[in-house]
C-alpha cells in the first residue's frame, strides 16, 4: 500500500500486461528483446490516447507518480485511479452519467478532437 495515499498496490491491469515483448518492455515485462516502449513511455502514450476520448466528455487524465493517474473535470473535481479498469467508473461518478463507447454522438466528437 502507498503510505501517502492509501492506495493498495494490486495486480497490473490487463491493458498493462506484457501480452508480447514487442508491446511492453521494462523490468516487469518479458525482457529487453524486441522491446518497443519502456513502461514509462507506454504510460505516457496511454494517457495521451485516453485523453482523446476524455476530452469530448470534459475530462482530463494525468499521470501521477508513475504509479497512478488523476482524473479531473473542468471544474476541478478529481479522483485518483490506479489503471484503466478504474478509469471509467470514476469518469461516470464525476460526470454523473454513463460513458458509452457505442454512443454515435461520442464517437463523432472523438473523431473531431
Amino acid at each position, binding site marked *: 500500500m502507498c503510505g501517502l495515499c492509501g492506495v493498495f498496490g494490486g495486480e497490473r491491469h490487463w491493458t498493462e500486461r506484457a501480452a508480447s515483448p514487442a508491446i511492453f518492455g521494462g523490468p516487469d515485462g*518479458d525482457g529487453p528483446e524486441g522491446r518497443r516502449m519502456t513502461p514509462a513511455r507506454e504510460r505516457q502514450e496511454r494517457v495521451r490516447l485516453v485523453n482523446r476520448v476524455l476530452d469530448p466528455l470534459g475530462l482530463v487524465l494525468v499521470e501521477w507518480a508513475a504509479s497512478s493517474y488523476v482524473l479531473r473535470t473542468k471544474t476541478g473535481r478529481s479522483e485518483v485511479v490506479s489503471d*484503466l479498469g478504474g478509469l471509467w467508473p470514476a469518469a461516470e461518478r464525476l460526470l454523473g452519467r454513463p460513458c458509452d*463507447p457505442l454512443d454515435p454522438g461520442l464517437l463523432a466528437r*472523438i473523431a473531431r478532437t
Partner: protein
Amino acid sequence: MRAADWSALIPVNVVTGFLGSGKTTLLSRLLASPRLASTAVLVNEFGEVGLDHYLLESVSESMVLLDNGCVCCAVRDDLRSALLELHGRRERSEAPRYDRVVIESSGLADPAPVVHTLTADPVLRHHYRPGAVVTVVDALHGFGHLDRYPESVKQVALADRLVLTKTDLAGPEECAILKGRLEAMNPAAPVRLAAGPAGAGGGSESTADAVALLVEDVHRADSRQAEAERWLGPGAVAAPHHHTGDVSSFCIETDEPIDWTVFGIWFGMLLHRHGENILRVKGIVDVPDLDGPVLLNAVQHTVHPPTHLPAWPRTWGREDGRAPARGTRIVFIVRGLDRERIERSLAAFRDSLAGASAPPPPPRGDRISTESSRNHLAR
C-alpha cells in the same frame, strides 16, 4: 504477475449444466482417467449420483455482491474460503498434492462469478487460475431448458467446452438439431457427444475426454495455438449472426491492424458499460509490428491476461479455406447488443486514435519485422 506465469498456477475447471443434465456422471467418468489422478473436486451439493474420489469437498453457494451490483463481479466467498483452505492443507501436507481443481456447480449456478473470484481475489490469483468451463447439456431436455431458463442459456454462452449427454435416449435427429443450436449459440466452444448411456465409458476414452474437456486450454503453451484455431472455426468466422432469444453470437472481422493501447482503451470502456450483456469474448487481435496475434479471452467483466501467439492460426474462410491469415477476429456472445454498433465503435476508435499515435521509435536490430511475417504468410 506476468501473463506467462499463469501456466504454473493450479487450473480450476468448472463443470456446470442444468439440473439433472448428467454433470456428476460425466465427472465420475473423467475422474477415472489417470490424467486426472491428482485432482481435487469441489461440489456444491452431494447429489444422488455419488462421486467416489479421494479429495472431495463440499461448498455452499454464498456470494458477496460488490458495490456495482453486477452478478458476474460477485465474489464467491464460499469458494474463496474452500480453495484457500484446500491450498493450506496441501502446503502443510495434510492433503494430497493435487494439481487441478474441478468444481461441480449446482444446476442453476452462474459460472461467471467463479471465474471472477479466481482472477480478482488478491490471494487466490497467486495460486489458482481459471481452466476450461465445461457445460453439460441433456439431449432429452436441453431444448426445454434453453427455451425456458436464462440460467441454462448463460451456462452455454460462457462455456469453453460443451458436452451433450443422454444422446442414446434422444433420437439422432434431435441430437443433431440441438448440437447445431449449441454451436450457433457458442461458436467458439466445441460440442462433444457423450458416448453411451449418460456418458458411460472408461479407459482410454475417459483419458481422451479428460484431456479434451479439462486439461487442454488456452493458458497452456502446448494447446494455445489449437485452441485459437478452434475459436475461429467455420461456425464462428464468416458465419451468419445467430440469435437465441435475446442472446446472439457473431464474429467481428477486420484486416486493419489496431494499436494495442487503443484496443485496450476501447475494450475496457466497452466492458465497463456493457460487460453485463457481453457474456463471452474470444478472439485474436492484429497488433502492428507483431509476427502473431494477441489472444483475447473475456468472461463478462473479467478479462484473462492477454497472451501472444508466435504464429497466426488457421482461420476459417480465408484464401484456401484453412490458411493462416493476419487480421482481427473476435467472437462475441452478447445479450441484446447490436453487432453493427460494436463494429462501428471499434472502427471509430481505431481510425480516430490512429492519427494520434506517437511516432514509432527509431529502428532497432531486435525489433520484430512485420515484413518478414507477411512474406512468410504469403508463401
